[in-house]
């Protein structure tokens, strides 16, 4: 187990360095700079600005500075706002994190529940209804669903605020919308793996020793049946990030995703690369956690590959 975690950590650091290098080179290869203006600046002013941001150093020096800064947790300063990239992340990431966690909770809770019931009652009307709902959930894009939900719950019924974050109720619609993207996939995964698990010997043993059907399904089978869902959570969180761009724009949430999109428009290089590296580091950590949980759920994995 410890060996597994260590090897994943080393691999993860490699990935982060690769991404940092990639984003550094990409943003330097980009045409057009952040200080391109309609009117050409006086040469002296141009030089001063470049010296201020060390843009006149050699590429190697800039790269060394950049990587050294990252190693100290210093992501540099935004070119457009009077904030450091670190401040932007600490102020705005909590919004994204809250919505993302709530969305995952909705998706996993409901999705696994739907999948287990569908597998339990396989090839009945309940199964078909649940799986059609799951497929429908996968098929409706959030940019269609979001405005419709706002129309119903905010403007029609007046239960929830339509946009912006003002109090806990504001989180409901964005989290629901983001969670629904994954609900269907998780439900289908859970159904498939539960069908497989329910046919295995240990389930027959559990039934044979006289456990109630409920205990067999929800206690014994579910523990193994949920493994593919846990595996899926790694890639799901990766797509959750791009999903959050859309949802945060849709609902006017002041999260990190919205900032990232703004940085793209403004060519705010330090914010772009800083947030990108932060996202990847976050995902790498999360994937290690997923691996560990995986090992706890399924003893066969614990010994390593």
């Amino acid at each position, binding site marked *: 187990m410890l060996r597994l975690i260590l090897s994943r950590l080393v*691999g993860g650091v490699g*990935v982060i360095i690769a991404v940092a290098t990639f*984003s550094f080179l*990409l*943003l330097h290869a*980009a*045409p*057009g700079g952040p200080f391109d203006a309609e009117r050409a600046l006086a040469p002296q002013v141009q030089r001063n600005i470049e010296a201020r941001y060390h843009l006149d150093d050699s590429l190697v020096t800039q790269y060394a500075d950049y990587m050294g800064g990252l190693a100290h947790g210093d992501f540099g300063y935004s070119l457009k706002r009077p904030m450091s990239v670190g401040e932007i992340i600490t102020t705005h990431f909590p919004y994204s994190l809250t919505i993302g966690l709530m969305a995952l909770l909705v998706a996993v809770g409901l999705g696994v529940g739907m999948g287990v019931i569908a597998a339990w009652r*396989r*090839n009945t009307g309940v199964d078909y209804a649940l799986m059609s709902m799951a*497929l*429908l959930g*996968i*098929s*409706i*894009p959030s*940019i*269609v669903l*979001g*405005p*419709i939900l*706002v*129309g119903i719950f905010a*403007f029609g019924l007046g239960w929830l605020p339509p946009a912006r974050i003002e109090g806990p109720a504001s989180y409901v619609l964005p989290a629901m919308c983001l969670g629904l993207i994954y609900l269907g996939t998780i439900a289908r995964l859970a159904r*498939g793996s539960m*069908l*497989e698990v329910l*046919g295995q010997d240990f389930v027959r043993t559990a039934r044979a020793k006289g456990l109630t059907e409920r205990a067999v399904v929800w206690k014994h089978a579910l523990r193994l049946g949920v493994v593919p869902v846990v595996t899926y959570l*790694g*890639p799901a969180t*990766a*797509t959750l*990030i*791009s*999903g959050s*761009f*859309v949802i945060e*724009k*849709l609902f006017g949430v002041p999260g990190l995703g919205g900032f*990232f*999109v703004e940085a*793209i*428009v403004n*060519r705010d290089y330090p914010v*772009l690369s800083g947030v*990108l590296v932060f*996202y*990847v580091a976050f*995902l*790498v950590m999360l*994937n290690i956690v997923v691996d560990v949980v995986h090992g706890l759920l399924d003893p066969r994995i614990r010994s390593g590959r």
Partner: protein
Amino acid sequence: MSAPTATATAASRSLAGDAWRRLRKNRMAVICGGVSVFVILACMFGPMIAGWFGVDATSIDPELGVTPPSAAHWLGTDTLGRDMLVRILVGGRIALGVAATATAIALVIGVSWGAIAAYVGGRVDYVMMRIVDVLYGFPTLVFVIVVMSVFALKSIFWLFALIGSISWLTMARLVRGQVMSLRHREFVEAARALGAKPSRILFRHIVPNTLGVVVVYATLSLPSVMLYEAVLSYLGVGVQAPLASWGTLVTEGSSQIIAYPWLLYGPGVAMGLTIFALNFFGDGLRDALDPQTRKD
């Protein structure tokens, strides 16, 4: 190909015939296949037919302005008085075109990647599949967004290429699994005994036998690519004006949901319906070709 019974008498069943029989029994999948074909044909020929009635996607009628659905304009008109039905059909050409092209690109990369990894095996296989694993846990769409905007790529061809370049991972895994199970079969040994080069064995003898899986997965990846296009267009880095896709039409409509809801419902339903139909049909196709994956 490698059907177990070579004797094609009337009584024996070919693999394809068997699959076709199973697919036809799944009535919902057949309906969804029909809907998909209908949508594709409508997008191809619909605008032409509308042209005979003097309506096209660019004919502006500022006098008329935005109107709800009516007998003259079945899905209403937008703020410039353009007929929404025709705009949706024309937008569908772009949406479906992006989906088809990007899927084709993903197919080429994924099939080659998976086939080479499995056939060469050993350390090469390990490294190639680790790369796939790492990319799986990656926000690949974020990279597309960054690259599209940093290099100010406005051309739709970049959209094809970049979406295609991130959509091949699952394909590579599936093809690898298939090739693994095929590479020691007799017909491969026979080809090798005849002195065929590895590249010929791989791409002429093995890869054609994986096409069943490839076709099924291609059907299933069309809808997810359509969703990518919608997300990119919504964020303003996808399809650019004057072109319009379902993604851009939905984006336009979503800002006017209260005043003019039909501007969202038309393209939204078109997109949702097409994606649902393709997903359901792809599922049916997979169940028909490989009943074991259903596990029940």
